[in-house]
């Protein structure tokens, strides 16, 4: 499933990099400790977090993540938006909690085939 399919099905709000949503998602990772994400997220994972600091963009880039989903309608810092736009990292927002959106994305990925 591609990032754009998940966005459509779950009505996620796209804040940055709308032209980078064709990537095939390999799975998900939910964590708010960026050190943990750097160590354990896999390439093309969709990353679910409440952290909005600009370091999330660098971590997503470093781990080649498919997109970042910010939960609870969190608003990223202006520097985070700017950096995500420059680095072409899709920042997505949901009103759901991390638990709920993880469950929804998991269900989508599981029923894909």
């Amino acid at each position, binding site marked *: 499933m591609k990032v754009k399919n998940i966005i459509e099905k779950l009505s996620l709000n796209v804040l940055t990099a709308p032209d980078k949503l064709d990537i095939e998602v390999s799975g998900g990772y939910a964590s708010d400790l960026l050190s943990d994400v750097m160590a354990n997220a896999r390439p093309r994972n969709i990353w679910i977090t409440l952290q909005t600091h600009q*370091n999330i963009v*660098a971590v997503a880039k470093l781990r080649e993540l498919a997109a970042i989903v910010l939960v609870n309608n969190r608003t990223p810092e202006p520097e985070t938006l700017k950096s995500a736009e420059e680095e072409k990292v899709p920042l997505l927002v949901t009103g759901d909690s991390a638990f709920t959106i993880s469950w929804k994305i998991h269900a989508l990925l599981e029923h894909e085939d």
Partner: protein
Amino acid sequence: MLRAFKADLHIHTCLSPCADLEMSPRGIVRKAQEKNLEIVGICDHNSAENVLALKDAARDLPISILAGMEVTSHEEVHILGLFDKPAGALRLQEIIYGHLPGENNEEAFGLQVVVNAAGEVQRFNTKLLIGASTLALEKVVSLIHSLDGLAIAAHVDREGFSIIGHLGFIPDSLSIDALEISAAISREEAQQRFGGRWPLTASSDAHSLDEIGRASTSFWLAEGTVSEIRMALLNREGRKVLN
């Protein structure tokens, strides 16, 4: 004349809900003297309400009490702010209080005791001091600097509540003055992992009397002040961090 000063820049008092009630001003000062500390930073969570009592308790003693605070940013990263003038710490407290939601639950988190120099209870702080402020990390650092304080990233070798644990690495744009390492890591290992760009300071993060001085930093200074420590961190005018 410059000489060595042994400093522990990160000590909690009985105001921090997670600290022992024995962390009274006189108890802390006595233990600090036992450990040959000449500079002590008082850094309670999101509050500086016991700083003046500590200064009072150390009056006439050869020990400098630095007014400080351990601020929690909204990323839940701990940053120490240290000030020469207590007014700086108290102004920071005023701003933090304006951005610190919630109320303490004493049963869940512990008592938050405001005391005088003799350790007599003045009142109980009711703010949720263990919680996070709504201020972003960069904002916290710039606030501390705007009040002429020193901003140090706390216990960077730990995963919990540290800038590296929570944010993965230290952003280039962040103008932090030093990185604090805890008693859990040797200087050599810390130098390998975190050294280079930022100076390192070791402190105890003591929450009980027996933890005071379990990690410390020796500075080469003219006197035990924040402005002297700032010069030492920058290697200026002969001031330096010894070990």
